[in-house]
């Protein structure tokens, strides 16, 4: 026990992720001569930036004991809304407002269903996922929207200084904001309390539903932001945009050490998991390994991540018993 508390930081989930990240960088650098180039690494960040923008608020939501799997569908809906607005000649600031606004409204709908409608969040967001993506398909069919003004491409393709992209800057800023909010404010502590025991939180006078609603709304807003970034980077909108991302983003959050049971998890962990996954994706691409092989690794990792603590506990619980007998 003493040993564990002194070297506790070694066993922390974030430290493990950091270690994996270092191993990953060394491995890819030795396997490919192109990896350790500053521009290559800058390119690699695009593999996780848009997903990370959503993973951060989603981490808060999952820590609070809820889940939102409609995030990728919100991207599609917001992207379609922006595409239609662009077709009407709306300028870049207007498009950003449309994207963010659509995301916020979609998130508010989720929040209202969960708080006012008392629908379990997984059911509500499976429903709205189908609905939002369905509306995107209904409006667009098999068409493509790509009449975006030239200045719109700055968000997804622009760089702040040198190889530091605007997307990466945004992710870092958001991570700091969410990290400070979750770990250093009273509201953040309340979110943990909410996830650990919502009934106790309610009895302690926490306005549980207001917190839930706000978290869903913020997750929707960030999904709208991700839609702006992704649409700007791709320069086009199809209804199938960001298909399957909800599962990748949820995987990202859980690999970051957030407990699906709620009440546990950190922002640095989620950010590290995002970088680790993004780099694996990019590195495997560099080595010509198809993306689907990557999905096997991510899937197995996901199960391992939740299984290891359980197996560890069993092992720890079984040991003294064996010694006694």
């Amino acid at each position, binding site marked *: 026990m003493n040993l564990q508390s002194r070297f506790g930081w070694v066993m922390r989930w974030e430290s493990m992720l950091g270690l994996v990240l270092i191993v990953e960088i060394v491995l890819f650098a030795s396997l490919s001569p192109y990896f350790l180039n500053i521009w290559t690494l800058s390119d690699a960040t695009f593999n996780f930036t848009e997903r990370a923008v959503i993973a951060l608020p989603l981490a808060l939501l999952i820590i609070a004991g809820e889940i939102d799997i409609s995030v990728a569908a919100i991207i599609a809906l917001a992207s379609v809304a922006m595409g239609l607005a662009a077709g009407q000649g709306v300028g870049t600031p207007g498009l950003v407002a449309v994207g963010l606004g659509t995301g916020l409204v979609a998130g508010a709908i989720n929040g209202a269903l969960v708080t006012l409608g008392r629908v379990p969040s997984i059911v509500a967001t499976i429903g709205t996922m189908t*609905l939002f993506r369905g509306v995107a398909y209904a409006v667009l069919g098999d068409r493509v929207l790509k009449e975006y003004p030239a200045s719109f491409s700055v968000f997804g393709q622009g760089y702040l200084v040198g190889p530091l992209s605007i997307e990466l800057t945004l992710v870092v800023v958001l991570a700091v904001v969410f990290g400070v909010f979750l770990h250093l404010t009273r509201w953040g502590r309340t979110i943990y309390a909410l996830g650990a025991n919502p009934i106790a939180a309610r009895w302690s006078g926490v306005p549980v539903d207001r917190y839930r609603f706000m978290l869903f709304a913020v997750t929707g807003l960030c999904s709208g932001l991700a839609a702006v970034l992704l649409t700007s980077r791709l320069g086009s909108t199809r209804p199938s945009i960001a298909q399957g991302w909800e599962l990748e983003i949820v995987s990202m959050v859980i690999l970051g050490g957030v407990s699906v049971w709620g009440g546990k998890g950190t922002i640095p962990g989620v950010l590290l998991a995002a970088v680790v996954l993004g780099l694996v994706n990019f590195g495997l691409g560099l080595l010509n390994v198809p993306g689907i092989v990557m999905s096997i690794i991510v*899937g197995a990792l996901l199960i391992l991540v939740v299984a290891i603590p*359980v197996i560890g506990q069993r092992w720890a619980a079984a040991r003294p018993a064996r010694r006694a007998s």
Partner: protein
Amino acid sequence: MRMTQNSAARRDLALGFIVLLLFGLVTAAFPQFARPSNVAEVFDDSAILIMLALGQMLVILTRGIDLSVAANLALSGMLVALFNKNYPGAGVLPVLLLAVGSGAVLGLINGMLVWRLKLPPIVVTLGTMSVYRGLIYLLSGGTWVNDNMMSPGFLGLVRFELLGLTVLAWLAIIGATVAAFGMRYTGLGRDFYAAGGNPSAATYTGLDPGRMQCFAYTICGAIAGLCGYLWVARFAVAYTDIALGFELQVIAACLIGGVAIAGGIGTVAGVVLGCLFIGVIRNALPLVGISPFWQMGINGIVIVAAAVLSARRREDKRSILETQTA
């Protein structure tokens, strides 16, 4: 108990009425929709969804969820397609056994992880979904198995017609009938409800809810495996991405059919009606002249509406006995 059952029966009746009304409205405008051949086609079209949804219902009843069904279906389907390609003379029976067997093993893996390690079902099946889908690629090397590589028996079984309905439709009808009787009148069927309705009470009566969960996953997996063969034979092609995202349609059918995600509530009739609802809309849209792209949006509206309505009903009847679900 009686109250819940009555409300479930009322709900099924209402849903049945809605499906009939929908069917009647489409028929009134387009009489050819009610032609026996077209009705048979709607059935044929919904058969795989019905079977998968019944398996999924078992899992949800015991407080689980299986996101890996479509990946299981695709992996088992690829397995039998490759088997058939390499051993075309083996006949259909080994194919069926292989499909059901591989599906059951894949389901058992989910079940053991959930039961023995007490891992959250949504994470386990999210993980196995990716793993199974990736394994298809490794198994097939990313290639397609086309109809000219499949034996006539392999392709013909699902299309064989009996009394105007395909074998595929009959399988769904038989499956639904067996499930309806089994869930209502056998001890095993009641055990699924008991394990999900109140796990601690079930434990006191000597029932292991985890074991029932594992059992539900295995059955759900076996059905998914069988549907893998049926899917590959029906569409006469197997590749890595078949049935991609279909798991959500299966879960949607369950939710429309009144299966409660919190476990313990759901009927076979409701689930079948939920599937038929989706099936009727899917087949009516092109007739009515609405783009099939609307299907998904309509499903979404229906799921949300059904979820809000059933949440309200639960509030009224059960909130006194149950603490607020987190």
